[in-house]
């Protein structure tokens, strides 16, 4: 790493921390302003998530789906295509694998079933994410609009499948038949009650990191995203790379939905979009599309979410205020000009120092020759 990129990295880190800091401060001020008992509420918001073993476990549990959708959006974001199907895929994959588990799950050995369900979830993701990608490349349709429309369609389709193919009529609320025991992911670490999707997530992060930074495809993808003209001039297959990246992203979102259902639910009962996809977008933005940083960002978001959850249950504050905070964070992290002058100044300074050093050396060399 040369000096300039080191400076860039440092400033980037400071920027992200500052953005989170400001957003957190905004959250605290909001809480302070609207709560009847601000000190208690703020204490709950900050320390609440760590107050019991169960809650720490639920932070990790929440961070798992965020990691998957975050990785998904790393791919979409890396090729600069805002394919937002991650949201719909998460829900739809959950629905499809519940259906499969209920229909054929009983009697099949557990490991076989789990591998099969994860594969089906991933395949669902691949197929669904191909639709907006195809609309984009073939018909030049706006990918954001196409994927959001598709998300709405998927929500209704999932509800339809649940209602007409696997509804449990014995329970009062709308829900599927119970998912068979031999399809469920076990919970691990005893009291923490963390779902075993944890391991799947870790494996996914490692694989994606290798794909991003150690394989040719990852490099191609990053070039296509950061400089399409250069990629074209180099003869990289643009369309192929862009579509492949979106398909991998879709697969990850599908696996995320699968793990969520198999790890945390007794039956499928989502009737509205789960918002995990948009949370994943925020995670990817926070992590600056670097898959290694995704789990950290996911954990951070999960911590804030659980904090809001605690506050929601303890006091008079609705959990929705978190989405506002999320919006602020995305805006500030993505804003090039936020601390941009500071960055330029630092880079300029480093460059000047380097130049001075070079001149000094050149002068010395010249001096030694003269002697």
């Amino acid at each position, binding site marked *: 790493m040369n000096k300039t990129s080191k400076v860039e990295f440092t400033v980037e880190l400071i920027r992200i921390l500052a953005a989170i800091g400001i957003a957190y401060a905004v959250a605290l001020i909001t809480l302070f302003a609207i709560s009847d008992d601000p000190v208690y509420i703020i204490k709950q918001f900050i320390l609440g998530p760590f107050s019991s073993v169960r809650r720490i476990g639920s932070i990790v549990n929440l961070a798992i789906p965020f990691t998957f959708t975050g990785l998904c959006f790393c791919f979409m974001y890396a090729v600069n295509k805002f394919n937002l199907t991650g949201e719909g895929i998460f829900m739809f994959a959950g629905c499809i694998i519940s259906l499969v588990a209920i229909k054929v799950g009983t009697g099949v050995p557990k490991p076989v079933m789990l591998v099969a369900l994860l594969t089906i979830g991933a395949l669902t993701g691949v197929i669904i994410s191909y639709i907006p990608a195809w609309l984009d490349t073939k018909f030049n349709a706006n990918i954001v609009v196409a994927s959001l429309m598709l998300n709405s369609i998927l929500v209704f389709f999932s509800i339809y499948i649940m209602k007409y193919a696997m509804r449990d009529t014995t329970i009062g609320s709308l829900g599927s038949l119970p998912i068979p025991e031999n399809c469920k992911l076990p919970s691990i670490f005893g009291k923490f009650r963390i779902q075993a999707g944890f391991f799947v997530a870790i494996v996914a992060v490692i694989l994606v990191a290798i794909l991003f930074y150690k394989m040719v495809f990852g490099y191609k993808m990053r070039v296509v995203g950061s400089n399409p003209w250069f990629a074209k001039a180099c003869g990289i297959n643009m369309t192929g790379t862009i579509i492949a990246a979106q398909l991998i992203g879709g697969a990850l979102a599908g696996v995320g939905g699968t793990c969520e259902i198999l790890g945390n639910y007794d039956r499928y009962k989502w009737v509205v979009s789960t918002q995990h996809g948009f949370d994943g977008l925020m995670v990817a933005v926070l992590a600056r599309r670097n898959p290694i940083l995704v789990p950290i960002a996911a954990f951070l978001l999960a911590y804030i979410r659980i904090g809001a959850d605690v506050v929601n249950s303890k006091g008079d504050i609705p959990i929705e205020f978190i989405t506002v905070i999320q919006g602020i964070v995305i805006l500030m992290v993505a*804003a090039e000009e936020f601390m941009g002058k500071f960055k330029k100044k630092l880079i300029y300074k480093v460059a000047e120092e380097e130049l001075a050093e070079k001149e000094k050396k050149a002068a010395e060399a010249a001096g030694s020759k003269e002697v």
Partner: protein
Amino acid sequence: MTTLNWIGTFGFSVLRLSTPLIFAGLAAVISKKAGMMNMALEGMMLCAALAGVVFAGKTGNVWIGLIGAVIFGVLTGGVIAFASLSGLTDLYLTCIAVNLAASGGTVFVMYLLTGEKATTSAAIKAFSLPSITIPLINKIPLIGPMISGHNILTYCAFLSIFVVWFFFARTRLGLRMRAVGENPNAASSVGISVKRIGYISFLISGVLCGFGGAFMSMGWVSFFMKNMVNGRGYIGLSACNIADGNPIGAGIAAIFFGFTDATATSLKSQTSFPTEFLEMIPYAATIIAMMIFGMIRINHLKNIEKGK
């Protein structure tokens, strides 16, 4: 006679459901002509819808509610313009972030004001903008029930199509905006401030979204409901994309989407077909329309390349 009545009611509901889509489509046209893709129509309309209800409820005057809705639409537009033009944030991300913040923020504000999370119908006194019965025309069979008796904003929407057309075709600011959209460098070389034009376009966009939002909460229904815009901003955006930024084309496309929406609504009450599939109709129609018009445009470009 009953069929005639039914057609009349159906036509009425088409025009009614097209109203927010027309406003959203025109707002998208304004941004598109200035060279930007405004995907935050959804968030802008949501903010405006809530602001309208709250202002009207607090002051007891529906017109102040309308002004409040427009002001909040403009404010949201200003936030986007500031973030993307002054802060150099990626426009796509800005819009997604604003939509996210608006969907949660409106619920949050609603909860703070009323203590409810789903609707304001119980807590805030309902106000609706007046409907207008057109004399003479309302006597004509078939056409009368279709185009008379609409909310004032519906007529405004149809009027705005021509206002926006006039704005781009005949005014100086409209010409400058088009110049910036076509080629920002050329425009700035003759002394047009690209940034300023960008701000203006987002603010005008905000005014139109303000009307759209006001129609949702003070015309379509008379209260604010969680996530009530429900994808209409995006449908409006695709209406604009289909027409390639032409205001009249966008208006026609918006009416077409209004038609699909009305079809879904009217079928829901008449058939035993699973409602889930009927609910999909507007969204599926949007995707299919995008495909068809994308294909036409690509073929057109190919023909030009061939030199036909």
